[in-house]
């Protein structure tokens, strides 16, 4: 199965490299949203709870665009059928799509987080707080990638897929926003907290694990007739 995952992942990254769609769309959306927040909040800088909320909501909404595009090429060009005709475990597609979406989200954050720091964030967090923020974001990315792959696989089978992605994805990802915002709020307060309370990252990790198991159990039924 590893060969199939590698082949699928390579194809995903090659397609995004050849005809960039998901990452540019998510990055532009996130920057635009941060600019809107900048004016709508009517303040030059934000910190703590508010900063965490703004960052997580921006990343979550931007991720909806990536989830919506995740199966688009397969749907439009018959790639999903081609995969279903191959004698490989259906989970290979789940692993490849989840990893690809995770990589796209990391790329998004490499653009969106510095933009957030420039446009809205108050005092810069310390290097330690920044490192802990990266851990929180990676855990959130894993949750979004797993749930996003499930939602994308459901949505691509329907005509209303552009509507279905946010309708299904946003409610399912509310726990990710809550945990990530709670965990990152102290890190984005003036100077940044010296330590990261274990509770919220642990809950995030548990969420990721539960949905990973759920996705593994359900994926075959979602992609097959």
């Amino acid at each position, binding site marked *: 199965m590893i060969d199939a995952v590698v082949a699928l992942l390579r194809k995903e990254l090659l397609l995004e490299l*050849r005809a960039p769609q998901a990452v540019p769309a998510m990055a532009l959306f996130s920057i635009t949203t941060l600019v809107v927040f900048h004016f709508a909040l009517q303040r030059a800088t934000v910190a703590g709870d508010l900063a965490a909320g703004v960052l997580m909501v921006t990343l979550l909404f931007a991720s909806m665009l990536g989830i919506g595009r995740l199966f688009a090429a397969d749907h439009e*060009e*018959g790639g999903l059928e081609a995969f279903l005709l191959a004698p490989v475990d259906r989970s290979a597609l789940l692993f490849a799509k989840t990893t690809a979406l995770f990589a796209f989200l990391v790329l998004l954050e490499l653009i969106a987080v510095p933009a957030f720091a420039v446009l809205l964030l108050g005092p810069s967090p310390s290097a330690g707080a920044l490192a802990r923020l990266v851990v929180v974001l990676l855990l959130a990315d894993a949750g979004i990638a797993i749930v996003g792959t499930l939602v994308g696989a459901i949505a691509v089978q329907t005509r209303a897929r552009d509507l279905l992605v946010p309708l299904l994805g946003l409610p399912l990802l509310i726990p990710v926003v809550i945990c990530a915002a709670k965990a990152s709020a102290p890190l984005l307060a003036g100077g940044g907290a010296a330590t990261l309370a274990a509770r919220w990252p642990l809950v995030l990790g548990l969420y990721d694990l539960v949905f990973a198991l759920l996705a593994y159990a359900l994926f075959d039924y979602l992609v097959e007739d």
Partner: protein
Amino acid sequence: MAAPPAIELRGLTRRYGERAALEDVTLALPAGATLVVFGPNGAGKSTLLRVLATLLRPHAGLARVLGGELPRDGWSIRGRLGLLGHSPLLYGDLSARENLRFHARLHGVGEERIEELLTQVRLDARAADKVHTFSRGMVQRLAVCRAVLHGPELLLLDEPRANLDPSGAKLVEPLIGAASGATRVITSHDPAGGLAEADLALGLRFGRVELLSPAAAIDAERIGALYR
């Protein structure tokens, strides 16, 4: 003891919602033989191929393909069949070689087979070009390569010569023609041409079997009547 048929259907039914796309289809096709399926648009030809390809589940009846029962044994059958449908199942933003390499890895096929096929259908000079720059005939030739890449025992061919000019059709003949040695199920709208390569002819209308006969026992006129 006689060899089991490559395809055995008994009362096969497949619905889309309330509408039966295939109803009570029964036939047997020996290994190495060619079944040509005729019928007007919407008769159920493509649905039949998709059921045999394990992409659609039968809703009733028995479907046995290459000794395995569908959908239960779909897993073991997939790697032994090749489907050439209306969609080429190729990514336009990947090159011809990248597309075949992707499929080869899914089927566990080596790199040398890719080059052999590209040369055979005379796409080797364009192998590094993106597929969306190809003409429809070139895409069809590449789709044939994709379908036969893993040397399938059963070929499911939905109007396989569509978009091919005579020279293109000649190039793919050794891969999907009788010389391929595979058991073949072909859909066709060409009564004379279809009958010429058929061992068994099936006529479908509104998902039902209107005609099932050894090809030698019927003529093109009888097939033409399906379309009136």
